[in-house]
């Protein structure tokens, strides 16, 4: 028998087939989901759907209020979570000495990212809603989501800080810069692409979140009536797009549900491309968990 002759084992062929079939299933899933939502949802989306709110008097059926709520929650959550997350990463990477303290902080950050969103929802409802008295409001929702996305921002900032060369630090400190000056003018700008990636991923998480918001931000769907209303809105109940999708699904309004699903899908697609683009352009390591 020649050494060159390739003997095919049956088990090899079967396994290779299994591998290909599995991959095929995974792809089919994605293509199926995206195209199904697209086909079912595209008919619902028009200008009126995007710019009006649900109202039986005016006979409109739009989601403008929910779009606004989503934007409110994204902005508010990021305003609170980003500074804390970045600060936490700076502490872990620049100040902390390895030891029990760091182990505890890293363990809790890890734990936070493993807690399911429904638990965050319960906690947010009783802590921010009842104990602190914010009730069902956009603020309660944003504070709840803050805890949820904290690990995402912290970890991505940490990854970015780790890639800043050690020589930058010793150089700056050697020239007499203080640590705060070093962080402000050298570390943070160098870590910016990583931080931005973390923020974009967080937006994706916020947009897709539903269980943590159902009992915290509630399901309000109206637009503010007056200009002052835009300020007081954060203390009022406001359902995001996902919540509205859930409610319409539960009511059996499937056409509307698919319309919202398509919008969500487009946002997620956009965020995905943006992170891809950023990580390629700036060579950022992305931590999605």
């Amino acid at each position: 028998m020649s050494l060159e002759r390739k003997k095919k084992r049956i088990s090899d062929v079967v396994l290779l087939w299994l591998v290909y079939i599995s991959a095929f299933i995974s792809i089919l899933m994605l293509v199926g989901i995206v195209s199904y939502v697209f086909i079912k949802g595209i008919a619902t989306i028009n200008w009126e759907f995007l710019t009006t709110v649900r109202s039986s008097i005016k006979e409109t059926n739009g989601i403008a209020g929910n779009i606004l709520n989503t934007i409110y929650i994204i902005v508010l959550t990021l305003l609170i979570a980003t500074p804390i997350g970045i600060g936490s990463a700076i502490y872990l990477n620049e100040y902390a000495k390895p030891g029990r303290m760091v182990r505890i902080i890293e363990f809790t950050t890890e734990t936070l990212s493993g807690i399911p969103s429904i638990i965050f929802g319960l906690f947010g409802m009783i802590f921010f809603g009842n104990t602190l008295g914010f009730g069902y409001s956009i603020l309660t929702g944003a504070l709840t989501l803050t805890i949820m996305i904290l690990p995402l921002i912290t970890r991505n900032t940490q990854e970015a800080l780790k890639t800043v060369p050690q020589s930058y630090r010793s150089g700056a400190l050697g020239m007499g810069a203080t640590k705060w000056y070093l962080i402000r003018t050298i570390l943070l700008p160098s870590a910016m692409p990583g931080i931005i990636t973390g923020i974009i991923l967080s937006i994706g998480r916020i947009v897709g979140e539903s269980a943590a918001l159902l009992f915290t931000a509630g399901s309000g769907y109206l637009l503010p009536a007056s200009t002052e209303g835009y300020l007081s809105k954060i203390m009022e109940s406001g359902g995001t797009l996902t919540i509205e999708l859930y409610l319409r699904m539960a009511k059996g309004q499937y056409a509307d549900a698919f319309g919202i699903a398509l919008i969500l899908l487009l946002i997620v697609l956009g965020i995905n491309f943006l992170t891809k683009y950023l990580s390629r352009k700036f060579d950022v390591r992305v931590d999605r968990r």
Partner: protein
Amino acid sequence: MKAQNFSIMGSNKTKSAVEKVAQWVFTFCALCAVFAVFSITAYMIINGTPALAKVGVTDILFGTVWKPTAGEPSYGILYVILTSITGTALAIFMGVPIGVMTAVFLAEAAPKKLAKLVKPAVELLAGIPSIIYGLLGLMILNPLVYKIETFLFKDSETHQFTGGSNLISAVIVLAIMILPTVINISESALRAVPKQYKEASLAVGASHMQTIFKVMIPAAKSGIITAIVLGVGRAIGEAMAISLVSGSVVNFPLPFNSVRFLTTAIVSEMGYAADTHREVLFTIGLVLFVFIMLINVVMTRVLKGGAGNES
């Protein structure tokens, strides 16, 4: 500028004050996560235990009758707990083989160009909001499962038809949802296997498939276990995707029964529950929280035990 500012010693005081404040602020930020986990744990225990005392531990945890709004209410959640465990186990059983195989495809079997197309697709799958999985499960999966159900039980007189909203549908949705997690982590575990292992195995005459399944997968074991543990965490904690798909009736977890999970029990009843009923829902939350914490502990063990496999 005044003259004294030119001294190199001049502004030391304010500078060191700023330094101190900065360090305090950063430390405070880092402690936020600790504080959050601590208060979540405390709140879950404080709110979850009163019902256990009021109704009785065995009556809640081992009771099988769930009638929270009846005249003589009964709060047994055994079936709910069993449903969550069974559902998660089945989803893992279904999703992990496909996930690991796809990871093998991405890391080893696929031509580079194809892998470059598949990888972003998997990442996108991870980003799709869970509620959309629920919507699709309701619109596509339930009718399909209903067809199978009518076929299987057409002669049965005792079967309660679910219209496709049953454990099987929920399990399939969960299996799809854990796919991206399993694929991504297994793939990086496979890629982290030292090249020498593969080369040595090929050099002694093992085929490519033998090398993958007998050398590389065992070597990537701890990474794959991490993937499974994370998958378990994701499946047991998922709420919105399966709340409408699973039928939401408290039942023994048989494949074609409408069932209620720990998570969906909270989602579907928290809106109107009051008094003891509400407290029991928090107990359900506590049970879920305990499961998640156990998973986290297992996870840290695995990560510590695993040599060199990055998650």
